[in-house]
């Protein structure tokens, strides 16, 4: 009897952990960023500058009529 109960508990623990892990990995808002601290070259600075500027031909796309 004890064995059965322990098995049930183990299964439930595994189930709960699975639900938790699935939620964490399927959530887009959780981003894991490994090592972005060493970017200090000129290229990286220029990339940041480029991202802060707008292309003069930039546009808001709403799709084509046909």
């Amino acid at each position, binding site marked *: 009897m004890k064995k059965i109960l322990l098995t049930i508990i183990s299964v439930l623990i595994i189930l709960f952990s699975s639900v938790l892990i699935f939620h964490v990995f399927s959530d887009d808002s959780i981003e894991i960023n490994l090592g972005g601290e060493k970017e200090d070259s000129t290229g990286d600075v220029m990339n940041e500058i480029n991202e802060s500027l707008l292309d003069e031909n930039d546009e808001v796309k709403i799709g084509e*009529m046909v």
Partner: protein
Amino acid sequence: MRKIWNMVIVLMLMVSIAPLAFADEAVDSTDEVEINDETQKQVEIMDVCVGSEIRLLQLEKSITKNIIKGEELVSILKDLEYNTTYLEAILAEFEFLKEEVMDADPNSTDAVQIFVDLKHDAVNLTKEFRDALKELLDDDTIEHLRERIREMVCEQAQNLSSKIQNKIKQFNRNQLHKLYQIMGENGSSFLNKYQNGTLTMEQVKQQIGKMVNQMTKEKRYEIFSQLKGNKIQKKIQAKICVQNATDGFQTRKESRLTNRLQKSENMPDNPINEEMQERIRNRLNGNDNAGTGGNGNKNQSGGGGK
């Protein structure tokens, strides 16, 4: 033994409650609009007035282009003796939308919300027009029409383009001014030349690149960190604004539709106006497929169109 049973019950409860807790977010979001990454990115510059002006002008330009192209398509179809009432009703609503974009205040604290709402409407109306054409015409004809209007030059849109380019120059100038301040340099002569059009953006960037190259590693890292920090701050701000824009989206949509319906009812009666009113009423009555009323019309026109 009792303890073990208690544990089993607690674990079972936890397992059954967990999905409900995670699903809570999804239930709440049924009233919300899905905002894609592109819109999210576009909103990032709207923390300053000139950024909001740029986005609203760009939206106005895209709507103007689509109205002109839509009118051209309707004119071609009319020559081919198609019934174009439904398509014209969509264009009439597009005109209302354009007025709303032009009336939007870029200084408003709700500028992001307004932009998100009106862009959403513009995308939907464009899609409805495209879908209506698909029901009316075969693939070859659609391809032929696509080719015909691809190279269309829209004078109104071109006027808006130069206005937008000037605003973008102003925006970039402000950004570069902040950058020069971070670097502890005075770049006013370069910035003035850029705004006058004497220097291109690429040339200004080259000049900045040279300056960055001559800096010590520590200084470069300091600038990089500051730029990165500013970017993250902007992204967070944009995310908050977008989140605020999604709250009450449906209510605001109904209010916009009601306003358009009232405007349309105040106009002289004609088949296009009546069709537009029917489309709007359908959506207000919870039938999001605006084409339901119009579909009958389209089928009639499709059946005996040509």
